[in-house]
């Protein structure tokens, strides 16, 4: 079945295995789920507010960004990666409590819900999280030390969901999934620098391109 014309061209390559193609195509449609599966509406709203400041997508995907909050919520609903910080509760609980902690702190410090904060205030919150300076000592909320650990999970999950998307891979010119098809397992004929094979996507985002002007 032909792929929709707005799908990345590399999805039609015979250097991509059928299973990997199916995975990537299915994922492209993940955003259609609009309602969170595991997070409460309040926690989800905080996540929706924080992600564009952590990982702005416009430069890479233009006017059609991924719904990263939905993807993270979906990932939280599925199998996880086999470990968690001992100081944190199970992942779904940790995310819910962390996001509600952010909302409580926004109310306490700015007298408004977290989603009403401006980008600068949210950015400052992210910095304070990473430094272990943002949290609450209360039941069902996370301490600054716990919030610091959770902030690493937030960053990792956001980036994983982002880079797992075929449109992002295409925009950045990433060929990692084009490592061999089913009929012929081609691998890569060259691994040399500046030797792009014909089936590999070229980077479309300016800062993903080599800065050396001699390279086409």
């Amino acid at each position: 079945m032909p792929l929709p014309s707005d799908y990345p061209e590399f999805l039609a390559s015979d250097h991509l295995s059928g299973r990997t193609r199916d995975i990537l195509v299915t994922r492209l449609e993940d955003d259609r789920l609009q309602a969170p599966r595991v997070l409460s509406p309040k926690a989800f709203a905080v996540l929706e507010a924080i992600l564009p400041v952590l990982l702005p997508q416009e430069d890479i995907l233009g006017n059609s960004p991924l719904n990263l909050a939905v993807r993270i919520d979906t990932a939280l609903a599925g199998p996880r990666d086999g470990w968690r910080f001992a100081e944190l509760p199970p992942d779904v609980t940790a995310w819910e409590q962390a996001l509600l902690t952010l909302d409580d702190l926004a109310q306490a410090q700015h007298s408004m819900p977290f989603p009403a904060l401006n980008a600068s205030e949210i950015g400052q919150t992210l910095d304070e999280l990473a430094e272990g300076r943002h949290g609450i000592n209360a039941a069902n909320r996370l301490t600054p030390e716990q919030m610091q650990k959770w902030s690493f999970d937030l960053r990792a999950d956001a980036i994983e969901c982002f880079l797992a998307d075929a449109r992002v891979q295409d925009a950045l010119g990433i060929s990692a999934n084009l490592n061999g098809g089913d009929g012929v397992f081609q691998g890569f004929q060259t691994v040399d620098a500046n030797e792009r094979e014909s089936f590999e996507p070229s980077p479309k985002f300016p800062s993903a391109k080599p800065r050396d002007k001699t390279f086409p």
Partner: protein
Amino acid sequence: MKTYAETEILDVIVIGSGAGGAPLAARLAQAGKSVLVLEAGPSFSPSRYTSDEIEAREIYWLHERLSGGRNPQPFGGNNSGTGVGGSLLHYGAFLPRPHAGDFRLHTETGRSVDWPFSYEELLPYIEEVEAFIGVSGPSNYPWDPTRRYAYAPPPANPAAMKMREACDAVGIRHADGPTALITRDFNQPHFGTRKACANCGACHQGCRNGAKSGADNTWLPLAVAHGAEIRSGCHVHTIETNQAGRVTGVVYTRNGENVRQRCERLVLSAGAVETARLLLHNELANSSGQVGENYMTHISTQIWGEIDEEVRPNRGYPSLTITEDMMRPKDADFAGGYLIQSLGMMPITWASNIARGSKRRGADLVRTLAGYNRSIGMGIHGDCMPSPENRVVLSDEKDALGLPKPLITHSYGPNELAMHAHASRLLTRMWEAIGAKDLRLLDRAAHMMGTARMGTESGSAVVTPYGQSFDIDNLWISDHSTFPSATAANPALTIMALSLRTADAMLKN
């Protein structure tokens, strides 16, 4: 494949089908023993492995672990595996030999511990493993000119080339590292055709053409050819003993049903976390109090930087260039040493490391991600000492099978911190020397060892130097749990060599 009835009493049951269990299973089956290997994970079809790093987690051990201490270790990828073949399904196949000095570090420095035997005693087994599974390497290995590898190295990717330049710039030697993959087609006895490495770069997501030398395409087919059964989807939770305290069999869960299988001898090859967890949960073999103790990792500091070339770090064997010149650096303020390897990496693994290792956000983070195709890395594996601070214990939380989840505590001591600092300075100097920009150091640990150490005295060790429990004479351990110290080498080769050695001891016993 031969199958054994659930009513049969096996000569040997092996729990785990990876580097610890598979060579031993083959050896014992070849000697005519009835051998059953119980593997918790499924049996995968290599052609179905996917480079998609999210779905590829299916070959990682995903039963939740709780990670604590001052250096909590991320599990999932780069640690334990699941499936027939164990962690070798996803290992990076970097196969350096352990350094002879690492077996006698206490004698050498007064710190850490000695192994209860010498490197030279293990060497014949190391050579046997290399010859049987297929290892590529250079024709002249600078740190051991007598060594020979059966296969030529795979092509060097840009990270490997740049590390050569960087080594030259700072005056240290370099070579193509030993890699457990084949670079020409080979008809593996009892398995079939293994194709030459295609430079696809997805070693950690499962090798699709058999080039990578794992257990699934070497030891396990050999074991099966000699009458062993590999039974997948069997998660052992109970070890049964008689009144004399000897093991009589195990109980495992398969498709939700509990199954009992009896045996004359039991071998635990479940890895440094799961082997300890099984023993602790069943309250066995721990008169020394050492089960779960001395958990160790490798200091795995990485550096990443960008160059003005399109390098595509997903292409080619990821980590080809090695230097062993830092195994005993002259200016060291620590005991032991580390080896350095070049690093390419698949994009999500690479980005996750950056996510956990830096505070970048916003446009800065986006620009960093966009630099993937220009990124080159290096990483170290540094020896780690046993410490009473670091251990595996049972947590208060239960998993889906009702077993307590393991809690792993891991903190660097002064020696590990000094080694990390030394490596950080050197890696930075090397990447600066070749003009790499936007350097990022990642403080991370990898691999797992210890928790059931071997030794000569029953009061301070769980097993003998051959892997036999001091407490229960028909219980053996064959995996990295028994390592007294980490050594700097990636553990797979040592685990496989020890596995053959333990099998020989069982046959003599």
